């Protein structure tokens, strides 16, 4: 997790590219669902507690909300908290990879949301 999340700084190019992707999907009549996948409970607690990680979920959410504001074809399902989809700590392979049972719960949760 450290390798991916360390020194988190907004990548303006990635945001612009996402904007292009969502726009092009809309132009082709494709509906988009963005899912923020969960972390295992211990990893999620670390993200919430450590100063170097604490702000990251909020910053990520702000980016996605900004994208949603201009893309009506896109919906968002924030499942970063494993409890949101009902995933138990044992339903993970490691800090960020889910077992199949948890993956199913995430899909069920996100696809059934209004």
């Amino acid at each position, binding site marked *: 997790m450290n390798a*991916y999340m360390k020194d988190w700084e*907004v990548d303006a*190019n990635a945001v612009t*590219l996402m904007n*292009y992707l969502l726009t092009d999907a809309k132009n082709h009549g494709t509906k988009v669902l963005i899912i923020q*996948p969960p972390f295992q409970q211990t990893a999620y607690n670390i993200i919430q507690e450590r100063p170097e990680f604490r702000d990251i979920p909020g910053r990520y959410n702000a980016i996605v909300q900004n994208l949603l504001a201009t893309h009506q074809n896109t919906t968002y399902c924030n499942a970063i908290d494993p409890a949101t989809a009902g995933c138990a700590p044992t339903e993970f392979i490691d800090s*960020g990879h889910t077992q199949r049972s948890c993956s199913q719960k995430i*899909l069920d949760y996100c696809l059934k949301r209004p």
Partner: protein
Amino acid sequence: MKYFLFPLITGLILMAIINLTVDIGGTWHGPDYTFTANWDKDHYWVLPLRTEERSLRTKQIGFLPKIDTVGLGSSRFWNMDTTMFPPGTRFYNASVSGATVWDYIALWEKFKQDGNIPKNLIIYLDTWNFNKNTWLKYRWLPNAPLVFAFMHENASREMQATALLEWLTGSFYQAVDLINPTVLKPTSSPTKPTAPRACPPGNTTAAISTPTIRSSPKPCPKSPPSAATSASAP
């Protein structure tokens, strides 16, 4: 000084030639497999660890039947398959390991070029996809032509220039890898293949397992992988 530099430079050149010749994962020569058809629901494909999976993905997309839902994501999305969606969903899992937004664009562009545009797109957007300092930056290079095609159609000139710069930077690091001795380091025993986590339940879901050796498609074991027995339609 020249007695030091000559063997050093000769050694580096030799190392680069060996890496370029061996090219285990097809980094410089491209993948060496031929892909002429999608595999069946009863098959899985075990690949070597360094396989250049992005080319494989885009090649496979070319053989897909009409799809209505596509999933884009990283390895965290790998175990999503058709059976997990409502019945009748024609789902394809296009995830690649360490995916970035650049990968999502390349794969989306491939579906467009093939005229197989899905009605629904699920993007499993990792928290670090918006992190400028993540080290997962240049894996999309094998699909650079798709990225450039997308950018040409959709992006500003500034972003097209950025894409070119990113490609040049990534290509430079790839060239530096030619003198990286770890490229030749064995990553696992070639005589002990690991079993895939699960057989893909449908020929449109194509999970790429954590691979160790290359083989032709082989039948899934008859028992007990649960996913294989609950296979649904492509």
